[in-house]
C-alpha cells in the first residue's frame, strides 16, 4: 500500500453522490446522514461494509431507485475502488482521490 492510501475503515459507510459539490474532474460523495438538498430523483451511491460486501444504489432508466448487492475492494496501489455484482462483474469502478470523515471524492471517469 502507498502511504497515502486511505484507511479502508474510513470507507465503511453508505456514501451518496452529492453532485451539487462536484468539480469538473471529481465527484463528491457524502454519508447518507448528510443534509442533502432535495433531489429530483434518487441519489446514486454505495454502501461499503467491513466484511467486504457492498450495496450499490443506482437509478433505473425509469427513475426508480435500484439496489444491487456485491463485493467491494480498494486497490492499495491504484486507489481504485471496485464493486462487483453477484456474478463478479464490475458494476462500479472509481479512483478514490480523498477520504474524510464525511466526504469522499473520486475521479470522474
Amino acid at each position, binding site marked *: 500500500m502507498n502511504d497515502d492510501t486511505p484507511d479502508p475503515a474510513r470507507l465503511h459507510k453508505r456514501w451518496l*453522490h452529492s453532485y451539487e459539490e462536484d468539480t*469538473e474532474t471529481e465527484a463528491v460523495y457524502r454519508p447518507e446522514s448528510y443534509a442533502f438538498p432535495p433531489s429530483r430523483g434518487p441519489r446514486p451511491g454505495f454502501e461499503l461494509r467491513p466484511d467486504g460486501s457492498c450495496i450499490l444504489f443506482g437509478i433505473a432508466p425509469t427513475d426508480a431507485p*435500484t439496489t444491487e448487492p456485491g463485493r467491494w475492494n480498494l486497490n492499495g496501489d491504484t486507489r481504485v475502488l471496485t464493486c462487483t455484482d453477484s456474478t463478479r462483474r464490475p458494476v462500479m469502478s472509481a479512483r478514490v482521490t480523498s477520504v474524510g470523515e464525511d466526504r469522499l471524492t473520486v475521479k*470522474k*471517469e
Partner: protein
Amino acid sequence: MPDPFKPLIGNPLIAFELATVDPNGDPTTGITRTETSKTSFSIDTEEMKFSATGGIDAWDTRRYLNIWVCTMVGQYLNLSHIWGESRVPSCSDSDFVTDTPNQYGPNGGKPTFPHVTCNNAPHGDMFMNYMDYVDDDTMFMFSKEQVARMHAALEFERSQLGTPSPGM
C-alpha cells in the same frame, strides 16, 4: 439558452390531451380519483401504480399515457436519462443519442452554464435538457436526436397511442 446548444434544439411537435373515452368505452374526463388509506407512496415500490397495493392500476399503456404523480414522459417515448443508462455515474455510458454531450451523472437545482464533466468542455453538460434532473424552470429542451427517437417510438412501440379500444 446557451448559444452552442441553440442549433441542436429539436421540437417534438407532440401534444398530449386528456382521454375522452376510458378503457371500457365510457366517456371520461381523463382524470380518475382514487381514495386510499395510505398516507404516502414510495417510488421504490411503485405501489401507487397498483390497485392491490393501495394505488390504482394503469389503463392499457399501449393506448394511454398514465400519469400518477410524476412520470417522466420522455422515457415512455424511449428516451434515456441524459447522463446515460448506467445506474451509477460514469463517463463511459451513453444515452444513445449523439447530439447530447457525454455527461457524468444527474445534475440538480439550477446549474450555471457551462457545467463541465467527462471532458465535455467548452460547453459542458446539456443540463437544460428535459432528461436531466434540474429544476422545472431550468429544463426546457429536447435535442434533435432525442426528437427522432420519440418519433420512432410513436411509429413503432407506441403506434397504438390514441387509437380506439378494440371492439368499439
